[in-house]
């Protein structure tokens, strides 16, 4: 087979694309209003990291995997792309929250280096356990003084919601039980 023929074969349209076009129907009257269906960006594309640097983001991803692992057909932080979502959310947040996250991630990274001689992104579950000890403290209303503890508690809440409200979670729960789709009454802007 000539090279040109091989390339032509590889680029040929998949079977579905090559299916015969349906018979053309008469278009609706031009004044008819038709409701179109749309999709959200997350349904069709991946978010792009913009806020955290590479080291911070690697630590955030690792933290997400530790906080919300996948289980029993339910997505975890990875499947829900929760770290990428939080990169977007924290990047839009007030400075105080950005600082909490940035300093928290750096503190985690530094603690992992000091204790285990490696990046937080590379620690095992067992190695991470002492670093995440504040998450095993009983709940109190007042935020802890330690900024790392404050960050970990905030990140736990945020990862939980980012996973629970993700498209991955909605897909996993669809058909499992009523009310699992997270439907709510949305108020559109009045004007």
């Amino acid at each position: 087979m000539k090279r040109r023929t091989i390339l032509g074969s590889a680029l040929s349209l998949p079977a579905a694309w090559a299916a015969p076009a349906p018979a053309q129907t008469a278009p609706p009257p031009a004044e008819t209003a038709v409701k179109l269906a749309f999709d959200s960006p997350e349904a069709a594309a991946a978010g792009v990291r913009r806020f955290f640097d590479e080291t911070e983001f690697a630590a955030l991803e690792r933290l997400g995997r530790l906080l919300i692992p996948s289980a029993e057909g339910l997505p975890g932080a990875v499947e829900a792309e929760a770290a990428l979502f939080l990169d977007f959310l924290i990047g839009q947040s007030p400075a105080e929250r950005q600082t909490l996250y940035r300093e928290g991630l750096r503190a985690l990274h530094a603690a992992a280096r000091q204790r285990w001689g490696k990046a937080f992104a590379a620690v095992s579950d067992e190695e991470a356990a002492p670093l995440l000890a504040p998450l095993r403290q009983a709940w109190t209303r007042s935020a802890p003084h330690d900024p790392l503890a404050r960050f970990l508690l905030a990140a736990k809440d945020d990862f939980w919601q980012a996973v629970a409200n993700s498209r991955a979670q909605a897909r996993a729960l669809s058909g499992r039980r009523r009310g699992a789709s997270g439907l709510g009454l949305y108020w559109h802007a009045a004007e």
Partner: protein
Amino acid sequence: MELHDVLIIGSGATGGMAAYTLTRLGVKCLMLDAGPPVDLEKDRSLRPVSDLPYRGFGQPGRFPHVTQANEFNANVWADEKQNPYTYDAGAPYYWVRIRKIGGKTLLWGRASWRLSDYEFKCRDHDGFGDNWPISYQELAPYYDRVEPLFRVAGRNEGWPQMPDGNLLPDDSRDSGSVQRFIASAKRLGVPTTKPRRATGTLASSVNLLLPEALASGHLRIVPNAIVREITLDRATGLANGAHFVDRRSKRDFHVRAKVIVLGASCLESTRILLNSGIANSSGVLGHYLFDQFYVKNVVQCVVPEARGGKGGRSLMGGGGYIPRFRNLAKREKDFIRGYAYDFGSGHTPHPRYVPLYGEALRKEMQELEGAGFAMTTMGEVLPRRENHVRIHPGVRDAWGIPVLHITQRYTENEFRMARDSMEVAEQLCRGAGFEILGKHAEPVPPGESIHELGTCRMGADPRTSVLNRYNQSHDVKNLFVVDGSAFVSGGVQNPTLTMLALTMRACEYLVEQKKRGEL
């Protein structure tokens, strides 16, 4: 220019009730509201949270003072950048506003309790503050008429601190967890009852009050009309109209009226009066700001038998209310007045209460699904002169109207009450055999309960109050202020029902006065 019989400012609970009452009596009214109309069919739709751009978190920083805002309802609340206000450094005030036709009745909790003479005659009871110029008996006939309008359901108990109402009876059976809680409360001598609230998911001015008023042919409504000030005829001392700004075009208008009923919401009404420079010969206008403090989830519990999805409807679900029980017969604590609780069964506790992470957290959260029991404290806040609003000398809103500076701090009386409420809540839940996940006694910031009251208070003495016993200005006889700003004290009861009753009474008085030629 047209001269309107009555100008109503505001379309929420009290503006709506004013329109409803006055148009039934044949009075022609013009209503101005700062917000746009809402088409409840077109402007709301069911959407999955996963389709929202912020996964339900909402746009960060958009509503720093509206903890009730989420991504579903974000478009309902008043924009804080267009509608700024200021407060003292270190003493944040959470001013929660809705600027739409219907006001806060578009999203209210619908709890509808009557005040009693423990509030109307509070000074007689414990010596603090001032009595209202009216008694419970004077307002009772109006409560009797408002409750059926809002189809308030509940249970009459015959308690003096929580007067019986003209209610749809709630004879629903309590779930097992609620029964256990009620038994625990009984052992401690703490009263419990059913919730008392307007039935229906909306129960708003826009479906219960304004349609009938419009149908009468006596009401016209102008939306997007932001009132800048009420104008006065200096010769007569009477109000003769109002200046307003069109929200969209920012064009200025003036409307003329014989009588003005101001129901723009507690702090907006006072802001309008302060910007108008009227109704303040007492110097009290803007002072005695108070609300009700909340301790949200004062205890968060788990019903042990409901763990692992074993609850079911017979054990879990439902809730109830504990009315004020402190300091009724005699002073029994290191604070005056008292607090109430809401309690509810059957939710899933938030993961923050679970000191775990990873797979262990996920498993525990599955165990806790639907097994939660929680209580929230609603406490009385003492009206104090030093808590006040005033016009900020330099800050204006997006329409060039001077804004409010708000000063409110809770005091040791409220903090002591909050601590007592935490201790009692823990006792009640332990007595019911519930497992406590968390407890605390930290009130939400002032304003967050959305029960702001006072600043234009009623009173018998024009030297110490702004309004008389009929919500009528002492200074400007054809001006009535009917919202929560008129309150002298607030108790623990959600205030909307009382505002509605006061408005109905004030408007009927207004018509009587007009007939007698005294207005």
